């Protein structure tokens, strides 16, 4: 029988405790074990970024993270962004700037953007592009996403194309 390992971590500020299977990845544990469906499964191989979560404040790909390695650490997902009915500034800006079409990439984009703004509250456009360079969006052409992140940082947007 497959071994189960107990893992405890902080999920969006609340404590989470789950039993994980051998070699189970964090994305699977978040979605099926904890029931947080905000991180998405796109590729399972690190290329799309739709599973991006923050571990100890830094972006990580949850599909490539062995679940038991988050023991005792802090995990943040899009589920923790809004405070009750109040959306996070990034979520508001994504709505205002039409940065989500199908929305599949959006949770990963939001977490990559949050990591950037937490560290660099007023980033340059180039820093925004760099921050989301591991996240693929097949719908928007990226400019609305970049504009939204600039807007969330309180800076005027500047479309390039």
């Amino acid at each position: 029988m497959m071994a189960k390992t107990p893992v405890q971590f902080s999920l969006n500020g609340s404590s989470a405790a789950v039993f994980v299977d051998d070699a189970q990845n964090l994305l699977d544990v978040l979605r099926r074990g904890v029931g947080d469906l905000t991180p998405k499964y796109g590729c399972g191989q690190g290329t799309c970024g739709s599973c991006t979560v923050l571990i100890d404040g830094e972006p990580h790909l949850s599909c490539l993270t062995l679940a038991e390695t988050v023991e005792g650490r802090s995990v943040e997902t899009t589920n923790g962004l809004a405070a009750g009915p109040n959306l996070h500034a990034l979520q508001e800006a994504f709505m205002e700037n039409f940065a989500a079409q199908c929305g599949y990439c959006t949770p990963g984009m939001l977490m990559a953007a949050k990591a950037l703004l937490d560290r660099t509250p007023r980033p340059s456009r180039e820093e925004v592009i760099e921050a989301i360079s591991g996240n693929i969006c097949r719908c928007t052409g990226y400019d609305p996403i970049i504009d939204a992140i600039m807007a969330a940082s309180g800076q005027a947007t500047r479309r390039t194309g």
Partner: protein
Amino acid sequence: MVTITTVDTLQEAAASSGQGSSLLGGGTLLMRGVNYGDQDVSRIVRLRQPTPLAGISSEGERIRLGAFATMATIMKSGDTAFLHPVARAVGGPAIRNMATVGGNIFAPHPYGDFAVALLVLDARLRMSDGSEMDLDRLLPVRDTETRLVESVSALRPAGDDFRFLKVTRVKPRGASVLSIAAWLPRRAGRVSGARVAFGAMAPTPVRVPEVEAALEGVNLDQNGIERALQSVANNLNPPDDSLASGWYRKAVAPVHLGRLLLGQGTR
């Protein structure tokens, strides 16, 4: 089914490694294998606490990188400023928070950009049994090596002696069509003791002695580097993959080497 074994030291990890058993670094390649049912991964050995092997320290004219240091750690350290452009060339920000130096040494084609840089910086590995080994000697036999890498010591280059360039098709991030690192110490303006290494131009990152020999004693101008550029195609036999054919790689490598040597387009 993949099993996980958690141990406290690298020595325990080495002792429990064997056929089908792999040490977990950042997991960017190993977990991909797990997710896709790679039959070569049947057992993963992980360190309970990898942090002690993730440090960066200065050792005179050399720098020591723990095997578990990530690309992001390297980009944050002032001691490794010369390696920032190399670490930045590995994947996007999330990959860089996970990808380790040790894992990069074992990353299959077309990966291993960081190892390309280490090759020209005279990298010496400290292995799990306490022995030392040059990176050039490990790379050709890395698939059968049972010892694990504990840390890497590399030369700290002066001025613009060290250069690195990566060519990709997908901007701003993508796997290498090829990468090139060069260490070009000069005496009275002439190259003396050059080291040049290529990534994605052979099954593993490689130095090319013929190119290095052709640079000996020359000025870094178009005339001086001509012989080195010509010897690239004769001495490398790059693989085909979905990013580029071997033929294409061979055709463009001298162009990019030329830019690197002339100080155009380094990153």
